[in-house]
């Protein structure tokens, strides 16, 4: 917040900036040739972090231990113990006040009004109801290539498979959503899709036309992805503008 207004170059909130004042410093164009903007900044930051970590370790006051990033013990665990004890208190509170229900015994003769798994399987259950999207092959005389339910099981495999290969599709050192608007938008559409597909799976409980709901299931994620992308891109431009302004204030063009 207040960092944005100060005149000294502080790129990450710590002391030194990335712009060194001597003539050995590569020109703006040279910098730009490699990478630019936030990813560049991230790179610089990582480099310095690694170097300083290395220096600290070599001072030998520290136990020799190869830590690539943020030590889990004790910094992270202490924090987590404090936070998780609140959460455990919450578990005990809700279980004391809201015990689970107990429906009637199993009866294969009576089909209940609601056949549902627990809420966390709704998305998977919803994927089973994608029958209308099952492609029909004209070669087979309009009959479907596979049964609707096979198609639904396959949809589950596709979704989980896609999530699994994300690290191999999205590489690089960008971390924050604002550095990677596209992937953040993909993630956002995934989150929204898991919610809409869950709504689709309980469509007889949703007060809405089922065809409309079916269409919305696929439209809403796309819309939200677009909005996310636009917002993050705008934020990113804002950061870039700020960085450029600071840069040129320091080294005005001739």
């Amino acid at each position: 917040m207040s960092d944005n207004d100060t005149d000294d170059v502080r790129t990450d909130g710590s002391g030194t900036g990335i712009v060194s004042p001597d003539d050995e410093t590569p020109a703006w164009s040279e910098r730009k040739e490699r990478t630019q903007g936030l990813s560049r900044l991230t790179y610089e930051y990582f480099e310095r972090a690694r170097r300083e970590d290395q220096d600290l370790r070599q001072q030998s006051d520290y136990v020799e231990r190869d830590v690539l990033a943020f030590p889990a013990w004790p910094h992270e665990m202490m924090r987590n113990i404090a936070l998780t004890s609140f959460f455990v208190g919450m578990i005990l509170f809700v279980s004391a006040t809201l015990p689970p229900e107990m429906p009637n015994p199993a009866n294969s003769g009576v089909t209940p009004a609601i056949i549902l798994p627990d809420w966390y399987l709704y998305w998977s259950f919803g994927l089973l109801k994608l029958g209308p999207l099952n492609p029909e092959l004209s070669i087979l005389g309009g009959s479907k290539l596979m049964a609707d339910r096979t198609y639904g099981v396959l949809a589950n495999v596709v979704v989980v498979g896609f999530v699994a290969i994300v690290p191999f599709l999205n590489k690089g050192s960008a971390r924050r959503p604002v550095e990677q608007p596209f992937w953040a938008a993909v993630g956002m559409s995934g989150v929204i899709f898991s919610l809409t597909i869950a709504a689709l799976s309980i469509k007889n409980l949703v007060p809405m036309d089922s065809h409309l709901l079916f269409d919305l299931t696929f439209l809403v994620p796309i819309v939200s992805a677009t909005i996310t992308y636009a917002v993050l891109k705008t934020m990113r431009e804002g950061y870039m503008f700020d960085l450029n302004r600071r840069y040129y204030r320091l080294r005005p063009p001739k």
Partner: protein
Amino acid sequence: MSLERKDEHDHKGWMESRELTPVESVYLTVLIWLDRRLRVVDYLEILEDLYYKVNMQMPKSHTEQYNLDNKFWYWYPLYALGSFSTVAYVVAAISGALLGFYYAPAAAAADGSPTVAYDSVMLIMGQLNLGYFLRSVHRWAAQIMVAAVFLHMLRVYFTGAYKEPRELNWLIGIVLISLTLVFGYTGYLLPWSQLSFWAGQIGVEMSLSIPLIGEWVAQLMFGGFTLSQATLQRMYILHVFFLPFITTAIIAVHIGIVWMQGIAEPH
């Protein structure tokens, strides 16, 4: 601690030198009086000392080194979701072990009459002292664990924490999330109520519709193409024997890798 008394701070003189309101001076006098007699703070200071002795052995954390604390601390709850799901898992394991004393996976009929399994759950809910609380804790811990695991995955995704060198842990995480869901599903079937029965039906149909190996999977997981005693037995063994061992082992690996690699923070 030595027997010699430490130099005590001159509280009285100090209090007189300050402009304290009457309420404040009474408040402080009472608490200092208690402190002088009970010395709870001494014991806590020993703990504090211990913490710092351990702490000093470690390299500085990223947030300390770059003074990011005031910028990041309100994201900490999101970074605690992993531990949180582990804690919920432990809570569910303990309450589940206690529930196991009373539950019997037997005689799964489907004619609307209460079975042994159903009756034992009813006994836990109705007659056992604090039994309803036990089942409630088990169920809520499971629900919250699933929610925490989902949110944990989202946090990892949106902060790009799955990137090199953590791809392997992302894959292990996906295995874990699936195991959690299977855990939930098998547990859902155990009371053998209407909901359990029909959720089981869906499961059988899903596995039957897998191409090529469908029938084999249905046989393996559900003990046949219709729900029967074999189904309940299998779900029970999966829930209390197979899944706990597998999941605990994989969680250990998952956390071990985090331990070795450190937590990835966004910059």
